[in-house]
């Protein structure tokens, strides 16, 4: 019986691996296509490309419109990331070790914006901002993205705080530190990497978000995904691939940054 089992186990193993690589390939293929087509020669998006050139990259860096969109995306991403991190970290901290009713109710409430379709959220916010007379697109998109990113920060911090030794907080208070100083001197140094990772996630989410940004854009303020969509409507030029390549690269950089922060912490513990 066991003799028959060993080849069978091997077959199952091989099948599992094949399936795993297939899924991986299917996921990676569009990204590969994006990178390859960003170097193509013809002005109309084709795959595989007939020749290669850096012309589209030159055009990208020469285009005031695209560079403006990059600046808008970065400004909105940083703003939304900062706001979502402050709200998410303090919100999560507030419900730790608390048995009040509000503390039990808060996590599901915080989750709500993630459950509402972005189309609905974008439309609602557009109507709402018009009503209250908020016409600054920067502020509007930052608020919309904060709404989207805060739950992510909140839940990342929930798991970070779950591993924190709350005796340290007690010890800090016991030694005369008020709550704000306990946070700064005792809690923050221990959860710093978690906070950085949460902020990076919030930034990437804001950078990629398209639907709400489309609703809330204005003539002056367009994020990169919104401009990509607008230019796609007129022509399927390889410029879109260039922009997508940059978006993917930024996200990979973010992930690498998070990994570096975690490794630094790990490294510091080893020293």
């Amino acid at each position: 019986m066991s003799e028959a089992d060993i080849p069978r186990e091997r077959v199952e193993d091989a099948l599992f691996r094949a399936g795993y690589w297939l899924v991986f390939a299917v996921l990676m293929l569009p990204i590969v296509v994006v990178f390859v087509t960003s170097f193509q020669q013809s002005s109309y998006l084709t795959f595989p490309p007939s020749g290669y050139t850096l012309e589209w990259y030159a055009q990208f860096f020469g285009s005031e419109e695209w560079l403006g969109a990059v600046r808008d995306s970065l400004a909105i991403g940083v703003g939304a990331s900062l706001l979502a991190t402050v709200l998410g970290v303090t919100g999560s901290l507030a419900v730790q070790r608390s048995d009040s009713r509000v503390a039990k109710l808060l996590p599901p409430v915080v989750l709500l914006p993630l459950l509402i379709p972005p189309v609905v959220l974008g439309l609602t916010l557009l109507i709402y901002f018009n009503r209250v007379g908020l016409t600054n697109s920067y502020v509007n998109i930052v608020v919309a993205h904060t709404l989207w990113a805060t739950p992510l920060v909140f839940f990342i911090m929930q798991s970070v705080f779950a591993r924190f030794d709350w005796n340290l907080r007690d010890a800090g208070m016991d030694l005369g530190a008020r709550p704000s100083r306990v946070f700064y001197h005792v809690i923050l140094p221990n959860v710093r990497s978690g906070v950085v990772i949460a902020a990076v996630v919030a930034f990437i989410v804001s950078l990629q978000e398209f639907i709400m940004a489309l609703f809330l854009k204005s003539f002056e303020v367009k994020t990169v995904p919104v401009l990509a969509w607008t230019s796609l409507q007129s022509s399927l030029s390889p410029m879109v691939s260039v922009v997508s390549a940059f978006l993917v690269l930024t996200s990979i950089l973010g992930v690498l940054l998070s990994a570096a922060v975690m490794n630094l912490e790990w490294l510091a513990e080893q020293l």
Partner: protein
Amino acid sequence: MASVTLANLTKEYGDLTAVDGLDLDIDDGELLCLLGPSGCGKSTTLRMLGGLETPTSGEVHIGDERVTDQPPYDRNTSMVFQSWALFPQKTVLENVAFGLKMDGVDEEERVERAREVLEIVEMGEFADADPGDLSGGQKQRVALARSLAIEPDVLLLDEPLSNLDKRLREQMQLELRNIHDGVETTFVHVTHDQNEAFTLADSIAIMNDGEIEQVGEPREIYDDPVSLFVEEFLGDTNLVDATVEETVEEGIVATTEFDEQIQVPTPNDGVAAGDPLTISFRPEEFDVSRVATDGGQLTESAAHGDVTTALEGTITDVLYRGSSVRFYIEIGGTSVFFEQSVGDETDLEVGDPVVVSWDPEDLLVFSEGERLGRGGT
């Protein structure tokens, strides 16, 4: 330095009452051990003293000040945690100086004072070490130094020695005692280890189920326990069930599990014939000798008539426990033990018939958990 008064202190978590109307006075400069089994509410009591838990009702006074509602950072108490809770991102010196920094002491002075305190706990050479690199005993010393550095009125110790191995624990008990004598601060030390409490304490408060069972000096508690709970908690003893046969002028005559009647000179108010009793025969009170082959000793005990102070039994087990030897004796179907130090032990062996005798004055008698003549009876 300050005295502490806890009045009618109660802490409830939902339906669970962790501390139930606790009253306790601690003298200025005293080292009090809160002793009790796990879950008896002793740590909760300590945390309420430090302000880390808010009492459901009742009062906490430190010195002349009512601190019941004061947050921990406004109280001049300091706690040494069971897990020590050293700040992992700070050096040993920064840990010890932390409280002074929070008090606004300038850097030069707080470093100097932190170094002084580290010298007291013999950790001076580890000032720049990372707490993660220290051994348990060293962490414990640093945690102690960190708490002592702010010169608290009351130092709270939450089983800080329970994570140390036996030898180190005993050494630290003595050092803690010496440090207490040196700083003259009021110490409240929580432990579940009765040996630790007896080694350390000026006085011991024994807790059970959220309430104080007995407070007193170690000797006083050992000699005069108020309840069966205290007697059981203080150490190994032989508890023998008995039934009151009759109350006599000099005490009680009871039938024991040994199938023999014995007489105990104890106050007998509130007990009547037929009541169940528990009698504690402490192992050190037994006098055991081998039955002489001519039966001489038995005649002696028989002279007491039908109330016995000596019984015949058989050695069933001999256990070597390091520095002592424990002998188990079966008497009338019930097993009791006594101990002898190695070196002093007799040549008793398994199967030997022996006579066990005692002074009836040494027996402690409990009825419904309360000691006769003490407590509520």
